[in-house]
């Protein structure tokens, strides 16, 4: 697959979790990889993320959660994306303190990529390039 000309990534943390080191590292890495980064940062709700994803017409939503609340908050997000009929257009990635047992559950919820703490940013950018369903160079019909 050729590299899409323009990739727009939304990055956010749901809930009150303040551990934003990883998200900021990822934001820099994605910027350096040539992606456009919409950095929503911390303390946002699932609904705010979905609304911003819609308005900003992003290709990727990356959520970082280190509070252990992912199994409560990610279903809220997938519902919010579905309600706006954009879940099929968006590559959804989740990273953070995710126990092994939850990885499959997250996949079943519609999360395409799960990146536990320690994951390389290069793995994430490659995953995005390999899996993105549409680039701005080839808009969906």
């Amino acid at each position, binding site marked *: 697959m050729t590299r899409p000309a323009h990739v727009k990534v939304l990055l956010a943390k749901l809930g009150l979790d303040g551990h934003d*080191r990883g998200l*900021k*590292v990822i934001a820099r890495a994605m910027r350096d990889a040539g992606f456009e980064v919409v950095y929503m940062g911390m303390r946002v709700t699932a609904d705010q993320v979905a609304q911003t994803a819609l308005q900003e017409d992003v290709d990727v939503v990356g959520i970082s959660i280190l509070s252990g*609340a992912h199994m409560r908050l990610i279903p809220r997000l997938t519902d919010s994306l579905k309600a706006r009929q954009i879940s099929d257009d968006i590559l959804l990635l989740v990273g953070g*303190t995710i126990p*092994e047992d939850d990885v499959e559950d997250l996949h079943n919820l519609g999360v395409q990529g799960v990146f*536990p703490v*320690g994951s*390389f940013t290069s793995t994430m950018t490659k995953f995005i390039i390999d899996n993105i369903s549409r680039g701005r160079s080839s808009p969906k019909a």
Partner: protein
Amino acid sequence: MAEKTNKPTKRSLSGLEVKPVYTPDDLADTDFARDLGQPGEFPFTRGPYPNMYLGRLWTRRQIAGFGTAQATNERYRFLLEHGQTGISTDFDHPTLTGYDSDHELAEGEVGRLGVAIDSVRDMEDLFLDIPLDKVSVSLTINHPAIVLMGMFLSVSEKRGVDWKSLRGTVQNDSLKEFHGQKTFALGPSPSLKLTTDIVEFCTNHVPNWYTISISGYHTRESGSDAIQELAFTIAQGMAYVESALERGLPIDSFAPRLSFFFGCHNDVFEEVAKFRAARRMWARIMKDRYKAQKHESMRLRFHTQTLGSTLMRQDPQNNIARGTLQALAAVLGGTQSLHVSGFDEAFDIPSEEAMRMSLATQLILSHESGVTNTVDPMAGSYFIESMTNDIEEAAWEYISKIEAFGEGLYPLKSGMLQAIDTGYIELEIARSAYEYQLKIESGDQVVVGLNQYQSASNQKLELFEFDPEEEEWQKGRLAEIRGRRSPADVKSALSSLKQAALDDKNLMPSVLKAVGALVTEGEILDTMRDVYGEHVDPGVF
């Protein structure tokens, strides 16, 4: 001058140059009497006490808190029955950020990473049957510290415990919240005001309480290097001192009740140097700059927590070795108390098994390693003393920059507020965090099991089991307490709090009145957010 070789220069984890061999020439400018002194004597480089661990071992203080106040109380009583002498409370995210358990943003986080506290009733449950005049309590809370401290004082008063007999600590380090931990509620300036309210109130009414635990640990977990951790922590401390001086408090009235909290990474010698430099810097700052006269105001004492961010998911047992190295460095650096992070923390909050291993690590260091047999065993090493000088010098560069941001009689106070407002500190840390990550990804920094020496084993750990029912229980209890209160009392308590804030008075008396009327933490913080404005993360990276 070192001879030129083709080999690249070795560097410490924070980028300080490390030479192949050190000699007395490296310490030509070091005067041992002036720069080290004796342990327990100015400038306290060698430790705050003359006999250090020969007098008393460091305190093994493992932090704990989860679920409801009742569940955590049971854990505390268990720990006390098994020889622990102090309690260290971990609050959940809603409590840390000043929201009640039924707030929209609190979903899924109530009682998750710490204990949930909404009202003084929860605080009563948390310390049920725990003798508050005998057990030292550490309240790990920052922007809402005045509320939790108020609840704690209220519980003590109700039980007839004299505030003068209370011993403990409140973290109350509001400024680090903007670059480390990030459980802020208010902006830099109002949160510094609240920190100073606690210092002032406790100096006058709770004299044996440690009023601020000036923290570098969270800054380090956010990705700073050791130099930045040291510099920003000392600068925070100076900002607090200047804020209290500005209130008119005499330096020796409050300075002895300030303590410090650092993280500890894997680079053993750099960490030892960092701790020794911190003591020397603080002693000289307090004596020369702020004219302290009491030794207790000059000697820096600190708690250490080994860094969760160094712990890997790959081969999690390897983390026990990392924790041991970091704990060793903390002890060689002269820590007063220690928490060794659980080896399973890359997966979840630590299991009981992991906490048992952490305590065992501490016990083995105490009783088997022999490192406690003499005071400051690293002193006089050409390398360690050079490194101590180097890290101090590098830290001063940052502190001078922060001071240059400021102005007037209290340049560190205004400089620190400015350095936070402009995003300077956060961006410096973000840069370090990113550079470190790139070194790991390129293999320049080896992390065993992650980017080299990967093993095929995929052992499953028994992780902490969280009970999701507790969130609903806590919300039910909160609703019940709200229903039981006198609405007139609540209204009057909140309006006098608001007036005190508008009049720029010390808020502790109004907070005490409010918690007594069962006003919740979230309601009190909402009132403060109403007056001071809510802080929104600037989102810089």
